[in-house]
């Protein structure tokens, strides 16, 4: 199992509010990258009182080499699903880092250079379940981030989810990927940060 | 119990007796008393009613009440089901 890309150290933060499925997403994404694609991944998340109801955060450090320091220092990619999260963590983005927001929830971005997709709206309107927003996001990541390989992510979902939930999740994943592809067709060439 | 009245011997292990006096105080036949050494001793074995009070209540396992027949036969307790 050889990872498709050589990654030095890629730092990704998923952030938003409790209930948006951010912690689950972090787990699924991390497991997919680590177990299906063979990267070294260290995933941490915010614990404590703040994790319930308030802000929610999941961090991943991804590398082709063993990871020493497990926490992100300068983010390569920030995913923000709430205005607060976007405001709070934008300053942790490193120069040339990318920002991806749910533009149905984040109305004011601190920069003009960002990717925006309405994950929550898509989940609500196209799938009828707002909880699937995180899987729509995962689908988008699979298109936007070169080393997030769609096939590996789907396989990860198959092994971790019960058949009962699998179909709807895969549908959400597919939706996210299609929408991202439609809006940002040439994204892969833009990556310089790893 | 009464019919065994004459066939009983009460004996005390002086080494284990601490002289608390429970046996002497409660013995219905007044068989026992505390001797000058502070330990229990048998003063009138003949009045023993074989009630077993002293044996059950001796906190130091120092009193044995034996029937004479039992002494003659030298029978042991059946420990068949012991570990």
């Amino acid at each position, binding site marked *: 199992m050889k990872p498709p890309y050589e990654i030095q150290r890629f730092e990704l933060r998923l952030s938003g509010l409790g209930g948006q499925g951010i912690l689950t997403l972090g787990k699924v994404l991390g497991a997919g990258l*680590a177990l299906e694609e063979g990267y*070294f*991944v*260290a*995933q941490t998340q915010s614990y*404590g009182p703040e994790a319930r109801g308030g802000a929610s955060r999941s961090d991943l450090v991804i590398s082709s080499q063993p990871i*020493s*320091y*497990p926490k992100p220092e300068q983010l390569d990619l920030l995913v923000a699903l709430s205005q607060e999260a976007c405001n709070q963590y934008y300053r942790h983005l490193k120069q040339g880092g990318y920002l991806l927001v749910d533009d149905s929830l984040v109305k004011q971005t601190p920069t003009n250079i960002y990717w925006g997709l309405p994950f929550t709206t898509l989940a609500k309107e196209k799938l009828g379940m707002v909880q699937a927003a995180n899987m729509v996001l995962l689908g988008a990541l699979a298109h936007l981030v070169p080393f997030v390989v769609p096939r590996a992510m789907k396989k990860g979902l198959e092994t971790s989810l019960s058949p009962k939930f699998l179909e709807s999740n895969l549908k959400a994943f597919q939706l996210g990927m299609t929408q991202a592809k439609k809006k940002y067709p040439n994204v892969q060439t833009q990556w310089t940060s790893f | 119990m009464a019919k065994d009245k004459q066939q009983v011997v009460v004996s005390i292990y002086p080494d284990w007796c601490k002289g608390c006096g429970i046996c002497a105080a409660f013995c219905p036949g007044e068989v026992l008393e505390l001797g000058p050494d502070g330990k229990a001793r048998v003063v009138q074995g003949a009045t023993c009613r074989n009630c077993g009070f002293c044996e059950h209540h001796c906190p130091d396992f120092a009193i044995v009440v034996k029937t004479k027949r039992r002494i003659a036969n030298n029978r042991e307790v059946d420990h068949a089901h012991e570990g």
Partner: protein
Amino acid sequence: MPTKVKKNHRKEERSLFALGNEAVVEGALLAGCSFFAGYPITPSTEIAEIMAERLPRLPDGVFIQMEDEIASLGAVIGASLAGRKSMTATSGPGFSLMQEHIGYASMTEVPLVIVNVMRGGPSTGLPTSPAQGDVQQARWGTHGDHPIIVLSASNVQECLDMTVRAFNLSEKYRSPVILLLDEITAHTREKIQIPNRETYEIFSRIKPSMPPEWFVPYEESMRGVPPMPALGEGYRFHVTGLTHDVNGYPTSRPEEVEKLMQRLFRKIDQFFYDIQIIEETACEDAEVVVIAYGCVARSAHLAVLQARELGTRAGLLKLKTLFPFPRPAVERFIRQCRAVIVPEMNMGQMSREVKRVNNGLSSVRTLNRIDGQIITPAEILKVLQKA
């Protein structure tokens, strides 16, 4: 040394993307743990939760949630006496409550494993933030002189490996073993390999082989570790936290007390090199060595590599066994280097040990952080470059 290798139940290796706390459970089950008693406390709670899910599914697994941590360790000792490999997991305040029974287990030589996911500050302190505040408590928390084995882990795979090791050492030396983790290590998810049981060395306590009437429960022997029967196996003996003679009966006769205490220490001391493990990174030609453990060792690792790139001959000595303290290794580096740096998330608990070894041979720098934040590679690098 006679050892028993357990038969494996699961043949193939598996990979898992797991929390440090999950890895502890995997390690414990791999080592043959079949009894867990605990009381929920952040940030160790996942260990109890996963045990509650897993143990009842094993043929003889027992999970019980007790009323507090004192009770938890009491139940663990009871289960271990009854022949089970047993463990509990806790965090700072709960660890304080366990001290009484750590002493009891030490005196009665009951094998067991305590995982303490450390948190910051005295009292309730910083419940959800990382710290390394219990290092000396793990060593000296209980009253009276006693030997103890304290291990630590710095990444998720090590959580598994060191839990297995903790069980092995506790069974081998009939001693409580404490595994110190921190919130970062316990709450980081990483890929782990769950090894094949056949390839893994698993020790179980040695049982007496002589007939019960010849059995002397705390007999003096070369190894100093008497064989240990389980309750109900026919070897009836007395277990007591009082100083006891070789038969286990309480004694206060000086010569018997002295002998017992000496043996308790000897059984750990004489196997120092079996118990002690360290990990060296870039140490051969190092002029400055960082001595670290737990999550800080990960920061230190990155800092050392960065320092090398910048031209400083830096090295990392990662402690995996905190106690008995790896004096010989530390002494070697102190002689070799112009400076050693001990970064830790407390006010200097391990650096005390290092300084005791130092005797003025080199410069010992400390780097302490007590605000619930991990020491970053950049902070260590700064000290490294100045040292």
